[in-house]
């Protein structure tokens, strides 16, 4: 019994992190129709800055700056590079983000070098809670709470603010939205900034002992890879789907880790995605693309 509870809690804790990443993914996709392969690098970038600054300015300010820098990087990426590749198709832009990803990942791994992997979750690293005979580690609790608050806030903003309205209008029909006076560049770049910030927040929970194990910050990019299946599984156009996808991925991973093995857990996530895609090619809650001839 306590094992089952433990697995459920672990899965939910990790799922919350995946949901944060996947939500950022989906926001970016909704605004620009670009699958952002550099999402893991955005997380890594924010995490690296937090790590580099925390000894000088303290953890909280460093974390804030890390999150902001990830948001800024995403913003600049959209403004300086993606918005200039106007002729490129969606798929090309996705490949472009792969190029960006390679650059950021290479440079940050080079800076981190082969020294001991840095960890980030200082304030909640040691916290432990016991529930029904299972223990939950601090980072997972904080991740879950942050995810609930942030995702809730996002849905409120998305539903009620003018920014959310502009976003929804634009993802519905870009040209019509532009004709109604919505500034497309403002919507897209802000969406990228929000996506980057979410990645920068997620990394604060990824680069902790219970999640990354011995790999620390360097694991952030690898772990962010699991946000792909999370976002795709839910459907790239659905923020709600991202949350469901994130939790599904977290739970699938936790269960297969416990009942099969560590290696299989990484595959299981992708297999589940594959099965969902064969049944529903646009994900669980994604919009089915219609084609006119």
């Amino acid at each position, binding site marked *: 019994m306590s094992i089952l509870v433990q697995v459920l809690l672990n899965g939910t804790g990790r799922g919350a992190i995946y949901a944060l990443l996947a939500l950022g993914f989906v926001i970016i996709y909704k605004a620009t129709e670009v*699958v952002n392969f550099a999402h893991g690098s955005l997380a890594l970038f924010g995490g690296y800055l937090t790590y580099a600054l925390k000894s000088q300015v303290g953890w909280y300010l460093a974390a804030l700056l890390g999150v902001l820098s990830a948001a800024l990087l995403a913003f600049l990426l959209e403004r300086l590079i993606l918005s200039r590749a106007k002729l490129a198709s969606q798929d090309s832009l996705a*490949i472009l983000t792969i190029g960006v990803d*390679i650059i950021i990942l*290479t*440079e940050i791994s*080079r800076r981190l070098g082969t020294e001991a992997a840095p960890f980030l979750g200082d304030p909640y690293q040691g916290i432990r809670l016991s529930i029904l005979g299972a223990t939950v580690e601090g980072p997972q609790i904080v991740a879950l709470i942050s995810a609930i608050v942030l995702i809730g806030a996002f849905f409120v903003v998305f539903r009620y603010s003018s920014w959310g309205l502009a976003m929804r209008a634009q993802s519905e029909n870009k040209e019509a939205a532009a004709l109604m006076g919505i500034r497309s560049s403002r919507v897209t770049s802000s969406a990228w900034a929000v996506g980057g910030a979410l990645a920068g927040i997620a990394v604060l929970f990824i680069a902790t002992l219970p999640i990354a194990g011995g790999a620390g910050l360097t694991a952030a990019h690898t772990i962010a890879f699991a946000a792909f299946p999370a976002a795709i599984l839910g459907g790239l156009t659905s923020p709600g789907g991202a949350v469901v996808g994130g939790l599904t991925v977290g739970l699938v991973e936790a269960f297969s880790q416990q009942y099969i093995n560590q290696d299989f857990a990484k595959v299981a996530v*992708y297999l589940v995605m594959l099965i969902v895609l064969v049944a529903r090619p646009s994900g669980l809650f994604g919009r089915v693309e219609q084609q006119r*001839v």
Partner: protein
Amino acid sequence: MSETTTPLTPEAGAPSAELPAAPQPPGSGATAAAPRGGRGALVRWALWLLLAVVMFLAPVYLPGQYLTVGTWVMTGAVGAMGLTMLVGQAGQLSLAHSFFLLVGGVSYAVLSGDGSDGFIGLHLPTFVALVLAVAITALVGAAFAPVSGRLSGIYLGVASLSLVFLGWYLARSLPSLAGTTSSGRYVEDLHLFGFYFGEKSPSLYVLDVPIGQNERLWWLFATLTAIAYAVARGAVRGRIGRAWRAVRDNEAAATVMGVSVVRQKAIAFAVSSSYAGLAGVMVVWWYDGLLKPDEAVDSGTYSTSVAIAYLAMVVIGGVGSLGGAILGSAIVFGMPLILPLLTQGDGSGINAVSGTDFSPVVITNLIYGALIVLIIVFEPGGFAGLGRKLTARLRRG
């Protein structure tokens, strides 16, 4: 029909959801648009012949380490030609190329291995094992049809990524097939008509140079690359290529014209993965017969980063261009090996650097990452597109 096959829809046509549709095919720059027959053809044949002679004599003049760089580039070129047909001609994004390399390598190891040391091996003649390994990889690619037929674009790309994860898991959990992650398994190099390509103590001399393993593999790899190029060129220019481009440009329109979309997608995947299968066998030979599964799913010979590296080759060279694929491989696979040779004179520096140095791998990664970005922003046709523009301008005078 002119050499430059135009896609079904004009290039500047409706906003297409596909990858940059580079007009096909490449050929070697200046000669590509030359008229058939007459002097143009003669010049072209002369150039091919010259290239063949250069490739034949290269092992005599180049030292061994440079030969291994060349063979590694040719391995990448064969794989990248397969991927560029799939992505550029058939318009299907795939991030699974390293998985098909693994399938090819493992198939060859199992078919040709002698079954000792607890590994499963059927002990077939190495040439038969090579042919069957390529065929098996093609079948595995075709078996992806239920997925590839239903998905397109980025969904297909991410779905195919799951194959890399699957391959990594299977290779690790089936050590009797793929060898263990610590020691791998060894298989024989190719024996062909009494000629052994793995020869370490050669008795054959050309111009007083002993023709050992490096030299022999160079010849073998060059021949395989040439065959792969010729076959791919035939496919791209022929009926199959036209069907692929029809599917790429508009699936619905292709269906209306009588092209079976699901079937063409399956064929494209099969052809592309058979190239990857051949490249996978070449990888095993290149490592002196060693097949070794990766420790991690994101780094190693068959990892996601290799799948991405292949995509980078294709994009840098010009999506859909065969010549571009070879150039892309020279940049992505050649650079990390050639940089230390040029700067230090021996290959020992490749893995010797650690920590925060700008190692050749770091430099290469930064360069090809930047190239991808620059190419998509400024020149979606890649280097092949640049070459076409340049020759067009030169001809205009």
